């Protein structure tokens, strides 16, 4: 017992010192199932104290567009991992049904909806950026976008802001 009490206490290392680790995530897809990987990884990184930036571009713009963000869809078409005949996916109503089912499964495991997830990411200190070219193509401006988006910036601006970051393209 005596020797034990002199041993140093075992304390988790939370690496509180500034590590300078940064993560940049480019979200380029607007399907419901392709929105979540970026959001989940961003949230996980923020929970580990990593500075995190998300850049929404092309179809990924839907994730931060007010009129679409709560209405992202999941389709079986072109996705063999549903293990159902591809022809089924083209039937009327199938996308709506598949979307409804996926949203239910996501909610059942306590994972937030896309707008709530963005809110959590921002509350955790995450940075949201919109792609300038996508905004121009789709004729959208700041008013059309989720309020916490920090700005509409060019690809070059994003690369500059995420100097030294690890990068994920989704």
């Amino acid at each position: 017992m005596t020797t034990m009490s002199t041993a140093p206490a075992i304390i988790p290392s939370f690496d509180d010192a500034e590590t300078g680790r940064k993560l940049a995530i480019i979200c380029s897809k607007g399907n419901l199932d392709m929105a979540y990987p970026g959001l989940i990884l961003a949230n996980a990184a923020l929970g580990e104290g990593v500075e995190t930036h998300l850049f929404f571009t092309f179809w990924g713009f839907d994730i931060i567009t007010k009129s679409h963000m709560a209405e992202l869809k999941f389709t079986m078409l072109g996705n063999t991992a549903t293990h159902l005949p591809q022809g089924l996916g083209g039937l009327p109503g199938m996308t709506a049904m598949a979307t409804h089912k996926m949203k239910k499964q996501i909610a059942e495991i306590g994972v937030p909806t896309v707008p709530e997830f963005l809110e959590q990411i921002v509350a955790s200190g995450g940075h949201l950026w919109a792609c300038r070219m996508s905004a121009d193509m789709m004729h959208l401006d700041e008013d059309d976008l989720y309020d916490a988006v920090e700005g509409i910036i060019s690809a070059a601006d994003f690369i500059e802001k995420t100097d030294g970051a690890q990068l994920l393209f989704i």
Partner: protein
Amino acid sequence: MPVTTIGPIQVHVDAEGFLTDYDEWDERLGTELAAQIGIEMTPAHWQAIRFLRADYPEQGETATLRRVSTLTGIPIKTLFDLFPKKPAKKMAYIAGLPKPRGCV
């Protein structure tokens, strides 16, 4: 299972230092654990930690950050202020629970 000494108290921990026996914990130990990682406990800290302690036996796993925020009403941002940088892991450590295994 390693044994370590936190303040005047001996406890069983895993390789990283998280407590492994739910019943070895009390609030005095919680205060000591917090001090080890540079956190001084306030009533706001205790609100979160007491929730984690009460939730664990019911759920069989440590609450995630989102669960703590949703069920206590403490905003996520406040949890980051109270338990800087790695709130979910720090809360679990102070509460004498395993690290949360949920993704969100």
